[in-house]
């Protein structure tokens, strides 16, 4: 398809499709052995914000023998044009069709992107199912946080990388380049067989899934002798020495996160029981201040960005935060760059630091108490009290933050109506603090936003066994909260509960869901993370036509001894530890996090953990085995 004036004139933000940005990499295709299409199954603006993609793009392009290009999901209007003109999906840098690449890698960041992944394969003209691909087709791989339960997308991917890519991607490309150079011995199967020796690689076709009569999984076992029984997540042992790009692609079209991103650490020590990211990125590993300042300095020079953001799951936990902020502030004032601190738990320790740094931009502040009552915060082990929050609010209002946003989850395990009403009470209290801090604020109208999403139980969390509440009950609780909020100065925003139901079904699904996804695609599902595109009725139909029920995956309590569809994946944190955490949750006991001593979650088996040490008293170190006996 030619990019001509008239056709592109009808396209929303056409510069998303033309590439050529500062920092993007173009190579001579004749000079490389391996062409890698890095596919992000959402729009350009979302994908260009993704740190993992940035890291791996520059990592692969640092190799002389490989060229990595970017591919994003075309928006509905562009897809329409492409289909009408028979134009296949192409990579941004070269414009070459994706199906002509050697390796086509998808990053799975959230379940609601699965249909986009399939749609991109379809647009590329690559057979959807791995079994239908021939020797002339690219090898399609998956990675990213969502593949910790690889089963729902297992039928579509030739292989899957579980865990971090900095080392494994090199090994995969080395292996591919060698296999290609030596005349592709054994064909695709031969290459995939070799991959079984690369740590963290899962080749779904080498595993069979058996089901019990009640529809639960009986087991997932290798069907070849060379595939490991359990695939162990890949982690980078020394994060400080790990590759981090010193350049970044600077988009023309504003990305969602359009700034320099510095990654402080991986994993999280808090262990909030709903949070999948916390557990799957463990063990906790940090980068040193010196490394981070060096990276920041080079990125400021290379990108010309006006803002730098710190990335981690809980910025305030970074060990040497004071020193880092001091160093970054010096750098910032010299270069006129401002620093953004997301994921910051505001307390007296961090507030002093915020006050010191003039480079810190004060706009809105988001606090995430997650639950309204202390009882429920103990259940989820969110180690934040009401007093903490009031103090945070006071500090924030006192240091110039104008508006505040409170983020909660509805439908958490054991949630009762009092817990829902407690959200409204908490919001009202924060609002009063604001009015006291700033008497003029009252005239300004709504300046506090309460935002809720619905709890989605995720694999590799203590809540991986618990049922999600039904869609009708979700709507009732949402209305209850809306009615409980009395002040007109509090705005209430909520996410569509039906999206959360589908997300829950996909998150804990087994391999039979591959057929559901293919069906959903054929019914027209795509961009399901976008409320305008999401169509619940189509999803119900897709499940129904495959003889499955969404409720079986979303709303069913898993038995303590049930084989979970992802039990053959070892993410480090042990099943027994998670089961223990669930038992404590049901008793309303918070876990206390790793700062008070190693809880022995199991992730320390994979690599050195910042908090590893002797397990604290009465908490035996845990292995990967064991189930939840409390069911």
């Amino acid at each position: 398809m030619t990019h001509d004036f008239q056709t592109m004139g009808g396209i929303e933000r056409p510069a998303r499709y033309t590439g050529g940005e500062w920092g993007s990499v173009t190579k001579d295709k004749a000079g490389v052995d391996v062409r890698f299409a890095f596919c992000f199954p959402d729009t350009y603006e979302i994908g260009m914000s993704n740190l993992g993609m940035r890291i791996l793009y520059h990592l692969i392009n640092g190799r002389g023998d490989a060229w990595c290009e970017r591919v994003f999901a075309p928006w509905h209007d562009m897809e329409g044009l492409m289909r009408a003109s028979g134009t296949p999906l192409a990579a941004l840098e070269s414009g070459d069709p994706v199906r002509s690449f050697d390796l086509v890698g998808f990053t799975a960041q959230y379940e609601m992107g699965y249909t986009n992944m399939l749609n991109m394969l379809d647009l590329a003209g690559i057979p959807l199912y791995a079994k239908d691909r021939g020797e002339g087709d690219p090898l399609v791989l998956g990675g990213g946080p969502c593949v910790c339960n690889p089963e729902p997308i297992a039928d579509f991917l030739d292989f899957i990388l579980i865990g971090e890519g900095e080392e494994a991607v090199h090994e995969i490309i080395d292996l591919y380049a060698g296999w290609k150079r030596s005349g592709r011995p054994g064909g695709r199967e031969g290459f995939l067989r070799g991959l079984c020796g690369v740590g963290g690689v899962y080749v779904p076709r080498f595993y069979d899934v058996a089901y019990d009569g009640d529809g639960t999984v009986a087991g997932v076992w290798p069907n070849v002798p060379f595939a490991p029984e359990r695939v162990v997540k890949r982690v980078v042992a020394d994060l400080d020495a790990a590759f981090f790009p010193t350049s970044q692609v600077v988009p023309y079209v504003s990305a969602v996160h359009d700034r320099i991103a510095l990654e402080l650490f991986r994993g999280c020590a808090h262990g909030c029981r709903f949070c999948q990211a916390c557990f799957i990125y463990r063990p906790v590993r940090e980068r040193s201040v010196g490394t981070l300042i060096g990276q920041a300095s080079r990125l400021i020079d290379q990108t010309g960005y006006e803002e730098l953001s710190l990335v981690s799951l809980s910025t305030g936990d970074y060990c040497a935060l004071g020193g880092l902020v001091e160093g970054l502030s010096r750098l910032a004032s010299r270069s006129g760059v401002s620093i953004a601190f997301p994921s910051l738990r505001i307390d007296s320790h961090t507030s002093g630091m915020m006050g010191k740094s003039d480079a810190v931009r004060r706009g809105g502040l988001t606090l995430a108490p997650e639950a309204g009552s202390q009882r429920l915060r103990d259940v989820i082990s969110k180690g934040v009290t009401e007093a903490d929050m009031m103090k945070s609010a006071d500090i924030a209002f006192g240091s110039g933050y104008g508006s505040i946003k409170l983020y909660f989850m509805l439908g958490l395990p054991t949630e009762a109506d009092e817990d829902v009403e407690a959200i409204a009470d908490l919001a009202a209290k924060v609002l009063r603090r604001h009015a006291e801090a700033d008497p003029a604020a009252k005239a300004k109208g709504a300046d506090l936003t309460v935002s809720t999403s619905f709890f989605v139980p995720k694999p590799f969390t203590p809540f991986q066994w618990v049922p999600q509440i039904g869609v009708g009950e979700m709507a009732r609780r949402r209305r209850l909260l809306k009615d409980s909020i009395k002040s007109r100065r509090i705005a209430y925003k909520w996410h569509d509960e039906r999206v959360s139901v589908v997300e829950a079904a996909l998150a804990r699904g087994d391999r039979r869901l591959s057929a559901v996804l293919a069906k959903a695609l054929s019914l027209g599902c795509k961009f399901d993370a976008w409320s305008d595109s999401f169509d619940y009725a189509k999803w119900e139909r897709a499940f129904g036509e495959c003889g499955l029920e969404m409720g079986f995956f979303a709303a069913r309590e898993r038995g303590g001894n049930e084989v979970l569809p992802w039990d053959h994946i070892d993410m480090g944190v042990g099943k027994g530890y998670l089961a223990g955490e669930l038992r404590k949750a049901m008793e309303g006991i918070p876990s206390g996090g790793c700062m008070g001593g190693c809880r022995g979650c199991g992730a320390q088996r994979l690599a050195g953990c910042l908090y590893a040490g002797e397990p604290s008293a009465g908490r035996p170190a845990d292995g990967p085995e064991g189930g939840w006996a409390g069911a």
Partner: protein
Amino acid sequence: MRVRFTYARGDAVCYISHLDIMRTFERAFRRARVPVATTAGYNPRVRLVFALPMQTGVVGTEEVGEVTLAETVGLGPFMDSVNGALPEGMRLTACREADRDIKLMSAVWAADYAIEIRPPGLPLAEAVAGFMAGEGPVRVMKRGKAGDAPTDVRPFVIAARSDPSTGTVEARLRAGTVNLKPTLFVEALQAHAGLEGAGLSGLAVRRVVRGAIWGEAPRTGSAGAVIGDAFQTPPLVRLFGMD
């Protein structure tokens, strides 16, 4: 110090919106370590103006902009360092010091366009000649202060000709505060041809290139000279060279 410059943006970058172009220049100045002056306030912005916003999709060969610098710099090093920091497809082509306080945007009077039309072989030359020879109003829907309204575009067209061998229409159109988009001119050609019965249906714009941007030459007469009809063509000078 204020630097006026011309820059070219090629086909590879023509779909970048005007606002994104502004941001691209701001970041390129930072990468080039050009000592730009910024606005005071909460969100300081680079003091950068472009003479004429550009419709997304239009290629430019001599777009005019001005940036205010906090220090005096050599124009040669300025151009070299900025060109080293601009993405492929964007390039400064000339620069000079702009001392006088000309309001760049309000000084714009006209701009040249080359409009490639497909399919080739349409009776374009006749249509253009017919349009220019005609006298009656040619109305198309045009956005004005009070929303879209049928507007006679004839006064917005200063000159036009067609090269039948390339399917290109070259036109000098009013630009700036009184402005005609090249696509509306094409619509006007179609409307006129429809009136005259020289079928131009199925016509589509393949590529639009904006060339020189023109300003109104300073008047040498008395300050009280009657400006008269806003559409009467005054003597024009290239905006880049105007002082």
